[in-house]
Structures are given as C-alpha cells and as structure tokens.
C-alpha cells in the first residue's frame, strides 16, 4: 500500500519541485480544514499548514514510508493544533467524559426541519450556523467528525491519525453527530416554525 508512494518520496528527496507541488496541492486544503475546524482562526490555520509542510521538508530524508504521506501530515497537523490549543487552554483534556459509559445524551429537540434549498447552502448564514455547531464540540469530537465526515477518511485511518482505537473513533463520531444534530435542530426548527 505504502509502496505506491515510494517514487513520490524519492522525488521529494531529490528536491523535485513538481513533487512538492503535487503534495502541496493534494494536502494543503485538507490540513487547512482540519486546522480551521480545530482552531477557528484563519491566521493560525495558515500557520499550521506552514509548520506541517516545514516538518515534512525537514524530515523527508528520514521519512520511512511506514505511514502514507497524507496520514503523516494529518498527524503532525493534529498534534500542532493540540499544542496550540493547550497554550490557549492549559487545562484542555483529550479524553471525553463518560466516554465508556453506555449513556448517550438524550435528543432534546424533536422537531423536524427541511434541508435548506441548494442555492442557500453556501450562504453566509448557513456557513455561520455550521461553524457554530462545530465549535460547540470538544476538540476531540471535532477532529473525529472532520476527518471522518468532511474528509471522508476511514475509521482505521482516523484512528491512526488521532492515536485512538477504532472503537473510540466510532463512539466519538456518534456523539459528534448527535450533538451537531441538536445544534442544527435548534436553529432550523426556529427557522421553519
């Protein structure tokens, strides 16, 4: 699986500019989305993208190809984001409360709502609501939701990036979805009322 990237890694080691362009084009937006989801700040997210690629540049000669370049970049970016958050919130914990208990928060808002029409989806208003909803999640739920749902990574890849077991990824995704549902229900139920 990782062998398919060997020619790319080789080209990076030889400082082939096209190889760098390829990696940048493939991963920069993904890392930016993870960073902005976690830090909610464009300047800081740009800094994370820069630092992540600098690490790749610095480590490319030692890069063993034991993980995919993408997985490696995501991991570095995630850890940089967490370091950043820790500086802002020294008490930040990465374990979820009640994680292992079977009890899930009960759904509160049980009003149905209509999916907004396609043309409204890109509106400032909807974007703001989605951002607010994501922000309401703890960083650990946020990271799982972004990687699984928005980036479409598998449970196994997400687990590898975040250094979690696949079971924990599944539980966190479930909790994230329910919490986001609640947030959006509060907004949309009011809109449709």
């Amino acid at each position, binding site marked *: 699986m990782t062998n398919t990237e060997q020619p790319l890694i080789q080209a990076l080691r030889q*400082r082939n*500019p096209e190889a*760098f*362009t390829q990696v*940048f084009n493939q991963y*920069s*937006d993904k890392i*930016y*989305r993870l960073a*902005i989801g976690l830090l909610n700040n*464009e300047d800081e997210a*740009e800094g994370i*993208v*820069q630092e992540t*690629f*600098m690490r790749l*540049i*610095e480590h490319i000669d030692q890069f063993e190809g034991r993980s995919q370049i993408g997985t490696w970049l995501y991991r570095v970016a995630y850890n940089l984001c967490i370091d950043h958050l820790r500086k802002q919130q020294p008490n930040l914990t990465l374990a979820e409360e009640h994680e292992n208990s*079977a009890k*899930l928060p*009960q*759904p509160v808002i*049980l*009003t*149905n*709502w209509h*999916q*907004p029409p396609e043309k409204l*989806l*890109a509106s400032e208003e*909807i*974007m703001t609501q*989605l951002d607010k909803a994501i922000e309401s999640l703890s960083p650990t739920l946020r990271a799982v*939701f*972004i990687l699984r*749902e*928005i980036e479409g990574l598998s449970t196994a890849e997400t687990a590898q990036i975040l250094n979690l077991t696949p079971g924990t990824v*599944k539980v966190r*995704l*479930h909790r994230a*979805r*329910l919490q*986001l*549902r609640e947030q*959006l*229900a509060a907004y949309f139920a009011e809109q449709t009322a």
Partner: protein
Amino acid sequence: MNCEQLLQYLSDYIDQNLDEDLSAEAQEHLATCPNCRVVLDTTQKTISLFRKQGKRVIPAHRRQRLFSQLQNAFQQK
C-alpha cells in the same frame, strides 16, 4: 428495540453497519416511533449538510503566499 437502544445504534444504522437482525429491529421500532424517526431524519440531514458544505479551501492570497514560501524552503533544504 426501544428508543434508548435505537439511539445507541443510530450511527451504525445510518452507516449500514448493523447485521440483518438488528437492522430489522431498528426498522420495526422506527415504524412505530415518530420521535426516533425525527432523530434519524435530522441526523441524516445534519451529516449531509456538513458533507456538502464543509469543503472550504485556503483563501487564494494565503495559498499563494504559503506555496511560494514552502517551495523556496523545499529547494533550499
């Protein structure tokens, strides 16, 4: 299956990760429970909204700047 169990299995149901028996039990419960139907429906809408709308990209001016800085650093290392 009751409401609490349905909630427990909701993500697996949405992702079609339940075995046939559990999936049938979930469907049976959903057929008789309007509340759980709403929770299922709005959870699916929530997921679909984020999937459709979550794909933002680096703003062009930032992207340009980042790319030239990094390409430079890459060449010099």
